[in-house]
């Protein structure tokens, strides 16, 4: 049982990590237009945070919409 709980918890940590990799990839492409230095400016930082929230909003809205249509 402990092993099952350990695997379960590793599994959900891994899913979170993979979601963060995917979101960073998507939001970096859309929010960081060119590399002129190594800092994120305020606008890029704001964009990344909005991107994550809007992506999750969209995801949740679509899942609920699919459930309602069944």
């Amino acid at each position, binding site marked *: 049982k402990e092993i099952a709980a350990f695997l379960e918890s590793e599994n959900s940590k891994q899913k979170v990590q993979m979601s963060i990799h995917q979101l960073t990839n998507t939001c970096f492409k859309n929010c960081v237009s060119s590399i002129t230095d190594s800092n994120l400016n305020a606008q890029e930082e704001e964009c990344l945070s*909005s991107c994550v929230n809007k*992506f999750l909003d969209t995801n949740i809205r679509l899942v609920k919409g699919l459930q309602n249509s069944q």
Partner: protein
Amino acid sequence: QIAQELAVANATELVSKLTENCFEKCLTAPYSTNNEACVDQCLTKYMKSWNAVSKAYVARIQEASTSGEI
């Protein structure tokens, strides 16, 4: 139980592609505005596209296997 895992894999794939496409079509950097009406329309439009693609795919595969093309 295998059938159930496959159903989960299918639903996951659908939600992932839906989110990617509707996020791309309805929201743009810097992500300062919501676009929930667009997301709802996109969901319906994507599911209609899914049906149109399935119909065309199944028809094509049946035709090809009848004619011995594949």
